[in-house]
């Protein structure tokens, strides 16, 4: 009853092709946007903004990127951590070299650089697929991290090999560096995520997105009906890396402030983001958000419960935490292999009928 499309007539093609054709969806989206931008920053304290919402939003963006590649185009990648590192290091170099350009264009630029690198490492996907490709993307992971460790030019020859984000301002408010304003940081990241989530939803349902899905479902059949695998796969790698690169740039410049390649962008990052899209739901924009929320909040919650609630020492609780995460992942895959987004879809079906049985 609440969630039904009956009675919502489309009078023109524009309405018919709207991103959210049903009124209720539109209200929910506007509601979420309103809460995100107008309510949350004034309601929550610094800890919530910095420790939970910021990583959640940034990881959502990364998950969105990987979901484009793995969920929509079916190309399994284990190089997300490295591509985030590319974004982080290119935004660092750009911030030092061209601070006059402003932070937002620099983040977009570093996304473009990552897209170029990602396309390069996507080339093997034309020959190989499945797990062979996944292992091949590991080559990107190890090679790029090694490069950022060894070549001094990338970290401006700093003695520790760390990169530190110089302070930059948007409309006069500092958004990077140690003196940054928390609310400003939140607004910046939330804007990026909102804009690019809508963009992803649009791309995915358009011509390019449908080409990706055709390749995912069966690449040979897709080729036979006229989808060019070269273009489809490489655009998927490019767009995906663009998102992941921006996420990496924000991750380094806005959230961490300083980073070191082996610590911040190791292979566990790649797995973490992959877990997010699997648990959230492959091939779903909503799923990327749900998965990121789940995996960002879960460890914090576990730690709080174990250390503060039961007083276990931190080493043991770290072990319990890792076991719990493992068990939850396995349990999740058994109960709902299609992820949280699928649960939402089922709920929607139920809501259409509720409160009547059918």
């Amino acid at each position, binding site marked *: 009853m609440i969630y039904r499309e009956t009675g919502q007539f489309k009078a023109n093609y524009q309405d018919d092709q709207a991103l959210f054709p049903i009124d209720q969806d539109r209200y929910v989206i506007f509601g979420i946007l309103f809460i995100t931008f107008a309510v949350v920053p004034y309601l929550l304290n610094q800890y919530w903004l910095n420790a939970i919402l910021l990583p959640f939003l940034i990881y959502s963006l990364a998950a969105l990127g990987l979901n484009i590649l793995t969920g929509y185009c079916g190309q399994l990648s284990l190089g997300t951590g490295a591509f985030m590192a590319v974004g982080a290091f290119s935004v660092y170099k750009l911030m030092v070299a061209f601070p006059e350009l402003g932070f937002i264009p620099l983040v977009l630029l570093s996304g473009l650089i990552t897209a170029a690198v990602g396309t390069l490492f996507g080339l093997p996907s034309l020959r190989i697929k499945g797990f062979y490709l996944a292992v091949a993307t590991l080559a990107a992971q190890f090679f790029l991290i090694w490069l950022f460790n060894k070549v001094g030019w990338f970290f401006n020859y700093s003695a520790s090999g760390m990169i530190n984000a110089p302070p930059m301002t948007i409309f006069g408010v500092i958004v990077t560096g140690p003196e940054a304003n928390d609310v400003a940081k939140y607004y910046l990241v939330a804007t990026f995520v909102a804009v690019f989530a809508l963009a992803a939803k649009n791309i995915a349902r358009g011509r390019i997105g449908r080409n990706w899905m055709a390749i995912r479902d069966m690449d040979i059949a897709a080729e036979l009906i006229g989808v060019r695998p070269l273009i489809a796969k490489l655009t998927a790698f490019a767009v995906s890396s663009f998102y992941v690169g921006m996420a990496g740039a924000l991750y380094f410049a806005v959230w961490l402030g300083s980073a070191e390649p082996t610590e911040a962008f190791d292979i566990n990052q790649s797995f973490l983001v992959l*877990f997010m899209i699997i648990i959230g739901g492959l091939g779903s924009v909503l799923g990327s958000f749900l998965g990121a929320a789940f995996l960002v909040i879960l460890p914090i919650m576990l730690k709080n419960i174990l250390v503060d609630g039961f007083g276990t020492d931190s080493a043991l609780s770290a072990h319990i935490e890792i076991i719990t995460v*493992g068990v939850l992942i396995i349990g999740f895959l058994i109960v709902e292999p299609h992820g949280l987004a699928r649960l939402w879809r089922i709920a929607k079906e139920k809501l259409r009928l509720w409160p009547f049985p059918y």
Partner: protein
Amino acid sequence: MTFFIEVVLSGLMAGVMYSLVALGFVLIFKASGIFNFAQGVMALFAALTLVGLMEKFGFPIWLAIIGTIAVMIALAWLIERVMLRHLVNQEPIILFMATIGLAYVLEGMGDILWGSDVKVLDLGIPQGASDWMLDSFDIYIEKLEVFAAVTAAILVAFLAVFFQKTRIGRALRAVADDHQAALSVGISLHTIWVIVWSVAGIVALVAGIMWGSKSGVQFSLSLIALKALPVLILGGFTSVPGAIIGGMIIGVGEKVAEVYVGPFVGGAIENWFAYMLALVFLLFRPQGLFGEKIIERV
């Protein structure tokens, strides 16, 4: 020249160590189509259990080994019972993710049960340089690595006989060939999976012993799984000889590159060189050196 031979030989030996890990991957992939990321952690877990049994309970070596094998078989049964049984017919990527979850669980469990400090594993395996090789050919070779190579050869021979000559081995090959056809002639998939995970567990134990004797039993042992992956794509996911030969190629290539190219680019290229090598091979043979040719139909 002697130096070059030395480098190649030590590469070969290191390659055998990679092969030992890759072997476990291949066995499970063949029998169930699961890309088992937890293989490296299984090796760590097996080595930890072995050391734990010897240190905490004072077991003699042979009893500790038997005990560890029993633990690995129990683990295989548990994995099949709790995890795999419920994931039948899921997509490969889901199964892959599940094994990463499994890797987390095993890692945490091993640490809680046996402690996370570095342990010395001493089974009386000869260590140090081989005097005979040093005297007669002036070549430096680690005894431990020779021992590992011999063990690997025995293991592969044993596996070959097991696969080719026994009833269970035939069933395993049937399952690897076609799940549904195997089911239809009355082979129990569940039993086969338990067996194959047990065998992989035992292979993991052997790998764990070798790596543990070499560099101590510690967390970094689980990372050797990452070293075995390029071996896998080089040799093909489904081929036992591929795992061995792939391991040797990777081992030699890595050592030669580290010694002769490494100094010019800043060293530590071991981490990614194997992947690049494997990638170049893949461009020419997408299914790996010995993998089955993939025939695709629409």
